[in-house]
Structures are given as structure tokens and as C-alpha cells.
């Protein structure tokens, strides 16, 4: 089908894409032939659409001999609206106008992480170009991997190197972008990428106005590719941005777990949002880690209730079972471990302070009761004494009469003493 020529023009891509969408139901799309330059077009094959039932986006940037290209940012609405269709966008630049390529925004890609990104840079015959290292086999092999896109923004004169920690669990395609705002001399800035100390190749650089973009795309399939990737911007002062790739961390228990002989206990390791391939447990009494013998099912039971946690149940604890227990989470891209400390006490340990306090309480009670009986006896003695005095006084009053005042006084005095 030949697209009407009115749809092709400098602002061609948009209406062209719309047309493509309308026609996509038929599963194939003929390419519009520009009047100015030859193109290689990749036909959308039926199989690929059904095979990659998540949206596949193919973007062909064909650089003209004179200037860089513009590829319009893929608008979000279109993707959401036609998410079961494939979108092909052929940017056919006129020779006259310069174009700038903008980076595909991070949010869109992480949001539609089941998109596979295939990018073909097809060099025109006239000038040499850098071609991306994504080759044919990799496309078919890794096109069902998710794409992770990460961004670092740097400022020209800052002293602090910027780092971003990225947790990665599964093999993925990675796209790293560093952007820096340069006051002037955009083209004089030297851009390099390094993994650790090793220099990397095959990266893209783009400049828009005062912002310089450096982009590195690669795939992480095994643990060797994990690590730190840094972008360097040379100039008056070298600015550096680092992306650190790590496997997810796991959490156990910070404090030692205190148990007693004969108890059963459960040691648990979990990680927030990850799903390891499998978990293993080790026991170490000194420095050597010995794997737990799961055959002894009366003693050890390993349970995995959720994908992100593991439980080791130990029964009939003895003092030999104490020490450090290690749980390892194995991912495709590496391993993560955590330590839990187990203490096994015998009942004699708390019994000593217990008995001590009981003895002290018994002594207190005895002292209090004895004190009380003693003071009561003393009081009773005094009371008895006073009563005796009173009785004596009455008796003497009765018997002696009034004349015996003096003797009475003397008598009272002697009694009171």
C-alpha cells in the first residue's frame, strides 16, 4: 500500500505512525518510500508479533550524512492505547533539517518493562557510523529480557561523585544514561565509561543545547557482569557517576536468638521484594560453614512458605546446636547471605538469680514479722506495765484514803521508777 504523499513530510512520523496503527490489524505494513533517501525497512513479521506478545517496539534511526536524527519520544498514551499492537516508526529525515535524538525517557520504559527494545542503527552508505553492539542473535536471544533504564544527573562543578545503587535479581537488558549540564564547550568534553577499572566501548553520546547525554547499553546475564559501572565526563574537572549493581539483600535477625535445651526454634531469613532460585542453610561453630543435613528430618526442617522467605526449624535443641547459622539466597546473578546467632542455655542459668531472690524475699518476710512481734511484745509489756500501775493506783486510792497523800506520792514515785 502506498501511503499518500501528503502524509509524508517533515512532520511525517506522527500521522505516519497513526496510519501504521490503523493498518496493523492486517499484520504487515508496507513502507513508505521517501522521495529523498533510500531506507532499509524491517518488515514486521507475523511470527514476531505473536511471539513477543508483549509490545515490541522497533525504532529505526537512520542518520543522514549531514546531521543527527530526531526520533520523537514515544508518547505514553499511544502505547497504552494500542498496547497489543506493534508500533513501527520510521524516521525518514529530509536531507535539509538537522535532527536531534532525544533519549527515551526512563519512566516509560520501566513502566512497560515487558517491552523489548530493539534499536538498529543503519548507517547510510556515505559515512561511517557507529553501530550498536546489539547483534542479530542477541536480539532473538535476549529480546524477552526486561529492560532496566537508569539515569544519573551530574552538575558541572560539584565535588561529590554521584552514585546510584541498583538491585538486580534476574538477567536484564540495561540502559545507563548519564547527563551533565555544561556551561559551554559541549563538544570538548571527553566521555568515557568504565566497569571497575576496565574501559568500555560502544557507548552513545548526544548533546542538546547545554546538556550532554552519555548512554551505555548492555546485558547482564550472570554474576560476572554485576559490579560498578561509571561514566566519566572530562573537562576542567572530571565528573563521575557510578551505577552499582547488586543482588538483593536478605534480612535475618539482628539480636542473638536465646533458647533453652529441649526447645524447638525457627530461624527465618527473608528479603523484601525478591524471589531467589533457592535458599541454603549452613551452620558454623567456628569459621567453617557446614551445610545443614536435611536428611535428619526429626531435627531439621526447612520450609519455604513464600518465595521471599525461608524458615529453618530446629527441634530438640542441645547445647551443641548453638553458634552461627547462615542462610544463603542464590540468584541467577549471584548470592546473598545473612547470619543468625543461636544461643542455647540450660535452665540452671536463670535458676541461680531466681533462687537468690527467693531467699532474699524469705529473709525480708521473716524480718518484718519478727520485728512486728517484737514491737508488739514490747508494747504489750508497756501496756501491761501501765495497767498494773493504774490498778495499783486505784487499789491504793481505795485502801489508803485521803490522809496518806504523802506516802502515796512516795509510793507512786517508787513504782514509776
Amino acid at each position, binding site marked *: 500500500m502506498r501511503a499518500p504523499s501528503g502524509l509524508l513530510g517533515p512532520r511525517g512520523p506522527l500521522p505516519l505512525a497513526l496510519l501504521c496503527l490503523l493498518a496493523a490489524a492486517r499484520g504487515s505494513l508496507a513502507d513508505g518510500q521517501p522521495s529523498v533517501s533510500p531506507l532499509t525497512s524491517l518488515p514486521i513479521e507475523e511470527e514476531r508479533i505473536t511471539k513477543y506478545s508483549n509490545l515490541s517496539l522497533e525504532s529505526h534511526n537512520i542518520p543522514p550524512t549531514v546531521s543527527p536524527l530526531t526520533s520523537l519520544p514515544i508518547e505514553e498514551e499511544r502505547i497504552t492505547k494500542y498496547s497489543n499492537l506493534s508500533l513501527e516508526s520510521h524516521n525518514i529525515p529530509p536531507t535539509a533539517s538537522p535532527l536531534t535524538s532525544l533519549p527515551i525517557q526512563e519512566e516509560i520504559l520501566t513502566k512497560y518493562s515487558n517491552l523489548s527494545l530493539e534499536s538498529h542503527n543503519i548507517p547510510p552508505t556515505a559515512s561511517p557510523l557507529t553501530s550498536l553492539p546489539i547483534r542479530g542473535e542477541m536480539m532473538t536471544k535476549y529480546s524477552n529480557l526486561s529492560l532496566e533504564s537508569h539515569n544519573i544527573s551530574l552538575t558541572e562543578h560539584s565535588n561529590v561523585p554521584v552514585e546510584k545503587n541498583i538491585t538486580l535479581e534476574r538477567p536484564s537488558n540495561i540502559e545507563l544514561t548519564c547527563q551533565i549540564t555544561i556551561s559551554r564547550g559541549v563538544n570538548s568534553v571527553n566521555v568515557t565509561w568504565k566497569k571497575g577499572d576496565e574501559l568500555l566501548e560502544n557507548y552513545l553520546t548526544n548533546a542538546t543545547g547545554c546538556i550532554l547525554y552519555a548512554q551505555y547499553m548492555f546485558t547482564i546475564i550472570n554474576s560476572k557482569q554485576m559490579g560498578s559501572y561509571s561514566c566519566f565526563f572530562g573537562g576542567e574537572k572530571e565528573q563521575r557517576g557510578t551505577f552499582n549493581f547488586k543482588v538483593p539483600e536478605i534480612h535475618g535477625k539482628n539480636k542473638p536468638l536465646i533458647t533453652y535445651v529441649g526447645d524447638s526454634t525457627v530461624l527465618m531469613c527473608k528479603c523484601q521484594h525478591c524471589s531467589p532460585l533457592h535458599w541454603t542453610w549452613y551452620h558454623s561453630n567456628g569459621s567453617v560453614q557446614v551445610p545443614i543435613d536435611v536428611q535428619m528430618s526429626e531435627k531439621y526442617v526447612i520450609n519455604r512458605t513464600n518465595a521471599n522467605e525461608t524458615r529453618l526449624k530446629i527441634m530438640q535443641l542441645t547445647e551443641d546446636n548453638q553458634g552461627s547459622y547462615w542462610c544463603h539466597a542464590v540468584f541467577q546473578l549471584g548470592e546473598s547471605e545473612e547470619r543468625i546467632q543461636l544461643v542455647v542455655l540450660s535452665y540452671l542459668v536463670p535458676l541461680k538469680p531466681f533462687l537468690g*531472690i527467693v531467699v532474699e524475699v524469705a529473709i525480708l518476710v521473716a524480718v518484718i514479722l519478727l520485728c512486728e512481734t517484737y514491737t508488739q511484745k514490747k508494747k504489750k509489756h508497756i501496756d501491761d506495765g501501765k495497767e498494773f500501775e493504774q490498778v495499783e493506783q486505784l487499789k491504793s486510792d481505795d485502801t489508803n484514803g485521803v490522809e496518806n497523800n504523802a506516802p502515796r506520792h512516795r509510793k507512786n514515785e517508787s513504782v514509776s521508777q
Partner: protein
Amino acid sequence: MTPKPAGPPDGGWGWVVAAAAFAVNGLSYGLLRSLGLALPDLAEHFDRSTQDTAWVSALALAVQQAASPVGSALSTRWGARPVVMVGGVLTSLGFVFSAFARSLLHLYLGLGVLAGSGWALVFAPALGTLSRYFSRRRVLAVGLALTGNGASSLLLAPTLQLLLDTFGWRGALLVLGAITLHLAPCGALLRPLVLPGDPPAPPRGPLAALGLGLFARRAFSVFALGTALVGGGYFVPYVHLAPHALDRGLGGYGAALVVAVAAVGDAGARLISGWLADQGWVPLSRLLLVFGALTGLGVLAVGLVPLAGSQEGCRGALLAAAGAYGLSAGSYAPLVFGVLPGLVGVGGVVQATGLVMMLMSVGGLLGPPLSGFLRDETGDFTASFLACGSFIIAGSFIYMGLPGALPSCPPASPSPQATPPPERGELLPVLPVALLSSGGPRSTLDTTC
């Protein structure tokens, strides 16, 4: 010839009894509150949810309060001293038994039922005995004893944490069993006192011992109803103040500060209100009404704080509301016990204390779950605090029916002192002969004008 029993000593050995009651309060309520520290370890060991382990504390509290009348009945029969000592041993046994628990059920039985019953036997008799030892300075003494709660939390909480870190929860419970055994020496200090208002013979039969006959008095029934309503809302802030602060976005330390402000206000207010009440400037029942209403308003304020706007303003407002709540709740607490001798006479104080505890337990059981339910339904604690505040205010309204609560009636004739010592039962409209003290001045406050 036996000497005629003197009135309450109002000092002397009474201060020792106050110290003993202080320790009793600390080792029962204070320990119960700190027990929450051990609950996460228990949940982890037995692999049960937080809610299931929370029942251990809730059960212990419920048994302690609901079985309080049993404690007071036993102590009217045999005296406070042996009952409190037995209660101490029982609580200790409960802790020791639960240290060897193999399942959560053992903990429910050991800590919940056994220790709870032990605590039920100690609290009411100790506080009742204290009330008998004082007249002029009663409310102050009771307030002093009630601060044992807060002081013990300050002391026991870090100790418990240390025990948990050293010995694990089993060893910690075992050592706590030994610590609670100190209730026995506290009981030993409660020397029996013979007072003029005592009934001549111990009550016959368990029902009479429970003191249910006290409900026949109108004043006590009014008081009981009001207190039961207040109890519905009173305990909720103990349980839900921290989660409410966390909900408002205060963070762990911010929430702890809010709780601390309420606790300090509470403890300080108990002493001050006790001293104030004893001065006799205002009738106790009026103070009860006022502080009950203020507590209700404080709880309402705490609940309404989120509507005040920004984050920073929210924090300050919440601290102020928590402080207001703490001050009024602390002032209210000793008055509840201080007003009893005026309502039932000295002889019935111990029984009345037990009954009051039981009434508050009804509210204590229903209040926090209702509050939790409201929070789950509405998403935050505003509704729960509003409900609890209204319970408290409703209870305070009922207190208006107490004699002397409303200042509308002028005294029939001028009296030599502002209020006569309350233990002579002057708040009672009709004085039963058995409790009438010999030759005391008649009440000058008439209930009907």
C-alpha cells in the same frame, strides 16, 4: 479492759503501708504494662500472631480486675495481710509455671489466669487497707501509692529488656516470678487495724463478704454506674495513644515522647490532686466530677488533634493534648478510691474497692477492642478517641448525682470545719446504725434543699 479503738492514725505506720501499696501497685499494674516487651519474643517463639499473644496481657488484666471483689471478700474475712501474701505467692507461681510453657495455652493459664488471680488478691486489699490508715491525708496517700504504677514502668521496663536479652523469655519470666514474690513482704507490712467504723463480726457467707449489699446505697450505685462508664474510655489511651501518635506520622521516638508526657503528667497529677483533695476546700465528689469531665475532654482533644492541620503543629498539639489528658487522668485516679469511705464508710472500703475494680474491668475489657474496631472501620483513631471521650463525659454526668457534687445547695448550717473527715460517712443521706461513728458531728451537707 481493752482500750477503745482510736481513729485512723493518719501517719505513723500508715506511711509504711503507703510504701507497701506503692510497691504492690508497681508489681501488679506496672509489671503488667511492661510485660508487653516480652510479647514479641513469645510471638516469635510460638509462631503466633501479635494479636494472639496480646491476649496474654489482656487476660491477666481482665482476671485481675474482675476477680478483685474476691480479693476484698477474702480480706474482710481473714484480714488483708494473709490474703496479700497468698496472692503474692500465687502470682509468683503463675510466672514460674509460664516460664516452662510449651504452648501459648500454658501462657494463658499461667500468666493470664494464675498470675491474674494472684494480682486480684493483692490490689484491692492493699489499697483498701491504706484508705483505712488515713483520714485527713487519705487522697494524698492513695495518690502516692498509685504512682507506683508509673515508677515501676520506669524501673521494670529496662530491667525486663535486660532479662530478655540475657536469659531469653523463659529465663526472664522465671526471674520475674522471683521479683513478684516481693508482694509477700509487702503483704506482711499490712498490719491489721481496728477502727471505730468496723462491723463487729466478719460477714457470714460469701455473698455478704463480697459486699454486694453496698449497691443498695443510692450514692454507691450512682458512683458505680458513673465509674463503669468512665472505665469504658479510661483505659483506651493506655493502649492506643502510641499507635495513634504513630498514625499521625510522628515516628517511633515522637510517639514515645507523647506517651512519656502523658505518663509523667499522670504520675505528677496523682500526687498533686491527692494533696489538693485532702485540703478539703472542695467536696471530693465535686472534684471527681470535674476531673472526670476534664479527662473526657482531654481524650476528645487527643482524638481531634489531627484536624489541626500541619505536621509540626500536629506534633505540638498532640503533645499538649496528651499532657492535658495525663494531668486530668492522674488527678481522677486517686479520687476514685478517696471518695469511697465517704460513700460507704470505713468498714466497707475494702469491699467497695474490690467492686470498683470489677466495674472498671468491664470497661477495660470492652473499651480497647471497641476502639480498635472503630479504628479498623474508619481508618484512624479519631472515632475511637471520640467514643471513649464521650463515655468518660457521660460517666462524669452521672457523677452529678453524687451528694455534694453540685454546688447548688448551700450548707444547712455553718460547720466548724470545711468538711468533716469523710470516713464518718457524712456523704450518706441516711446513716445506717452499724456504721455510725459514736458521737461524730452530723453532716452539714444536705442532699436535698
